[in-house]
């Protein structure tokens, strides 16, 4: 980076060009940054710049319009609470990234007196604001946030509200209760283990009743979910891991109750409480989610909250759901078309990049149908809606899927094992019971039967998956690969067929396609662009797009001549311009990559290196992934890059072009029908169906806070090179689960030795259970870390 040598913008840290903006002696890169600084400076908020250098983010593009927030019906959907004086609202602000952000967002009261409290949540990227709505409207508040560079993301499918649904409060309360009972019952069980004298015998009865009391909330409140889940699983004629667990809990409680009641023994209350406590902790670990990411997004989070309808009373913002067929809509620059509609007025240049992956805007003429999902670029246009939002082409594709809930039946290892485990466990328990019955020892028969179910209760087994996978998940997370849940990691290890989308997935949309080497004045540039505008050659078009955006005015071109396979030449203002290959322009051929050479009056001025927009090391990544897996490419684009891609992809890979979104989905289906575990990599709306259909759908995104379609995992584009390592590590994680399963099974076998003789003392259970749990937690954590180090996914200390 050469940034350190040049001047940096005081606000955002971007390099500042020579003619920069300035305020109070600080340089700024653009008007946006300067105006943010002015606002903060005027409100005495300059401390913002003290906590971090260049804490701001450059304001990108034109911000959305917020007239619709003045509509009470829409505003009501967004706010959390309102009374006659104050309103409370929570915004999701993707640009929160440092401590300065927190500081500024919590000092909003200095910017506007109507704001009384604002509190930010860094990890969720949210800010909760209380303000007096008599002095500041919701729209005013949002515009204020936009002005200081913290634009809230307002969508219909609110990330905030979605996040609230998955509250873990209930589970945490259960863990606390179980922990409380565990600690107390252990304390009360100690005297029994250490041995009490005969004269203290009346205490043991008291302790027994206390213990029974403590186990009541553990069984009936904390362990409730296990019984419920076991019951559901039995009704579906399956045996999940909760069946032996619920059985274990029930038997532990029954035996404790019987022993305490009859005074025949101390019972197993401490083992019972410990078991439930550890199980709940494992469940809690497994349920950790990403608060700032959403994997379940549908079209509503992509479309705007409101659109402008043109009616008798003039333009009026209406919510998306109120759009009726026949409505006239006004779509301004950068707004998204929410429903299939006919163009009535204006010049439509629709950017369908998110829908099809094609970045060049599509021109439409009056009377043509424009499909929903495109973004208008240029002047405002008027449309007449022909289909409701939910019936539009893309949304229907999406809805089709949601209508028939795609049963994601991940066959996890523990589910597979538990079927056999439960059967074997019951067989051992019953045979032990029968044996002692035949030996005419009914007491021992009962003892052996319950002891088997207690000691073999698969606590450690139930914990090995969550602990391993959550450790693996945090490793992935540090490498910018965000996986929806732990089951998806197991799924990752089984994949044998990878399907890639092209644009935005294996190519990076932000990568600049051209790099100029040489020196040209702006005037010379405009001459070159003027010549290239006459050519239909793809490279000329790229050049015009790359260089021509800043050019204004058009120079007259004379004697234009294009030689196929060589280049173009023409006279501009009396200068002879040549654009083409090295020999054509008389330049020295330079190595690597395809280049376009430029010459003016037979003097070579430099060359443009046409860079492939593919992601870094794409070929190496794909070659490595191809071992043991099939690779496919499926693209909505035409096949102009087929030759180039077939060099990048391994020879046996299928490359498919010109595919519609439904084709992609059906292609995945056909692969699955052949018994493959398919992983789809995609990025756009057009991949949404395929991502859902695939065994594992991975959305590749260069900005994870941006919209990404519903999927099982989100991969940051920068970590694309790590994919082969991710796959290897997922396999290793499954290996760790297998190993820890072996360990917990050993513990079970040792315990069974005590159990079938019918002479197991509560002490054995009380020692074995926590010991096996601790071993498993320790083993999985260390083993996962070791494998992560071996796959170079954690930095060595």
């Amino acid at each position, binding site marked *: 980076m050469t940034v350190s040598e040049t001047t940096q913008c005081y606000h955002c840290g971007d390099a500042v060009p020579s003619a920069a903006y300035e305020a109070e002696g600080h340089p700024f890169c653009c008007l946006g940054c300067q105006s943010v600084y002015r606002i903060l400076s005027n409100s005495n908020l300059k401390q913002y710049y003290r906590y971090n250098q260049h804490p701001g983010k450059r304001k990108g593009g034109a911000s959305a319009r917020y007239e619709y927030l003045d509509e009470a019906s829409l505003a009501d959907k967004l706010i959390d609470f309102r009374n006659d004086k104050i309103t409370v609202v929570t915004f999701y602000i993707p640009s929160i990234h440092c*401590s300065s952000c*927190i*500081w500024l967002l919590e000092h909003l009261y200095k910017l506007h007196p109507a704001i009384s409290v604002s509190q930010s*949540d*860094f*990890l969720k990227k949210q800010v909760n604001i209380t303000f007096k709505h008599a002095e500041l409207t919701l729209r005013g508040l949002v515009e204020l946030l936009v002005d200081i560079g913290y634009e809230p993301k307002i969508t219909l499918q609110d990330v905030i509200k979605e996040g609230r649904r998955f509250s873990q409060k209930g589970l945490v309360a259960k863990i*606390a209760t179980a922990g409380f009972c565990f600690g*107390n019952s252990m304390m009360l069980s100690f005297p029994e283990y250490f041995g009490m004298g005969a004269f203290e015998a009346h205490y043991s009865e008291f302790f027994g009743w206390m213990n029974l009391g403590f186990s009541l909330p553990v069984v009936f409140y904390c362990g409730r979910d296990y019984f419920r889940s076991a019951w559901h699983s039995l009704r579906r004629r399956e045996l999940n891991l909760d069946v032996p667990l619920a059985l274990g809990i029930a038997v532990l409680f029954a035996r404790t109750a019987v022993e305490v009641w009859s005074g025949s023994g101390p019972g197993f209350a401490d083992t019972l409480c410990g078991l439930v406590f550890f199980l709940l902790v494992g469940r809690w670990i497994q349920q950790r989610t990403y608060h700032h990411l959403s994997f379940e997004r549908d079209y509503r989070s992509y479309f705007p909250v409101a659109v402008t309808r043109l009616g008798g009373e003039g333009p009026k913002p209406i919510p998306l759901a109120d759009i009726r067929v026949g409505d006239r809509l006004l779509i301004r620059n950068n707004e998204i078309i929410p429903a299939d509609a006919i163009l009535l007025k204006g010049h439509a240049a629709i950017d369908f990049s998110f829908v099809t992956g094609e970045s060049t805007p599509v021109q439409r003429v009056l009377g043509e149908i424009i499909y929903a999902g495109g973004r208008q670029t240029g002047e405002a246009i008027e449309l007449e809606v022909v289909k409701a939002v939910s019936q539009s082409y893309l949304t229907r594709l999406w809805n089709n899927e949601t209508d028939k809930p795609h049963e994601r039946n991940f066959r996890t290892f523990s589910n597979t094992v538990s079927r056999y485990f439960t059967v074997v466990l019951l067989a051992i328990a019953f045979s032990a019971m029968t044996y002692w019955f035949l030996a005419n020892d009914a007491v021992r028969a009962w003892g052996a039967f319950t002891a088997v179910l207690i000691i073999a209760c698969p606590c450690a087994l139930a914990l090995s998956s969550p602990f391993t996978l959550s450790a693996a998940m945090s490793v992935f997370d540090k490498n910018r690969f965000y996986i929806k849940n732990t089951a998806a990691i197991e799924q990752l290890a089984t994949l044998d067929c990878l399907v890639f989308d092209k644009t935005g997935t294996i190519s990076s949309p932000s990568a600049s396609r051209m790099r100029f080497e040489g020196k040209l004045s702006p005037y010379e540039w405009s001459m070159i662009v003027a010549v290239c505008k006459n050519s239909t050659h793809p490279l000329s078009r790229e050049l015009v797009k790359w260089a021509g955006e800043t050019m204004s005015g058009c120079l007259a071109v004379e004697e234009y001549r294009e030689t196929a396979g060589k280049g173009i030449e023409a006279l501009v203002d009396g200068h002879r311009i040549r654009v083409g290959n090295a020999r054509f322009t008389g330049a020295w051929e330079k190595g690597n990559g395809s280049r376009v050479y430029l010459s003016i009056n037979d003097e070579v001025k430099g060359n443009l290196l046409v860079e492939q927009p593919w992601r870094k090391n794409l070929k190496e990544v794909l070659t490595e992934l191809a071992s043991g897996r099939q690779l496919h490419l499926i693209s909505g684009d035409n096949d102009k890059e087929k030759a180039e891609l077939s060099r990048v992809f391994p020879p046996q890979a299928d490359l498919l072009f010109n595919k519609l979104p439904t084709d992609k989905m059906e292609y995945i289906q056909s692969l699955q029908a052949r018994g493959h575990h398919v992983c789809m990599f995609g990025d756009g709306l057009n991949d949404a169906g395929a991502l859902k259909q695939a065994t594992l759908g991975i959305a590749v995104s260069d900005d994870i806070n941006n919209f990404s379609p519903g999927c099982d995992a989100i991969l940051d584009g920068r970590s694309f090179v790590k994919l082969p390592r991710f796959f290897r590590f997922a396999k290793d994680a499954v290996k760790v689960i297998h190993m820890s399963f072996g360990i917990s099974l050993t513990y079970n076998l040792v315990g069974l030795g005590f159990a079938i003789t019918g002479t197991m003392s509560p002490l054995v259970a009380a020692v074995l259970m926590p010991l096996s749990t601790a071993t498993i937690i320790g083993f999985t954590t260390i083993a996962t870390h070791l494998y992560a180090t071996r796959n170079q996914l954690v930095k060595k200390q």
Partner: protein
Amino acid sequence: MSVIFFLIGCSVFIALIFLAAFFWANKSGQHEDTYTPSIRMLFDDEVEDDGKTQG
């Protein structure tokens, strides 16, 4: 030795108070955000130019 009944009663009672305190903290959302407060406490109290202090 019957004082042990009283002592156990006391210890369970105290433990229950802590459990209740935890429930209250959990319910009032103190475990919702475990990261931001750690940064918030590092911010300096600023001295206002006009001499008026705000909390």
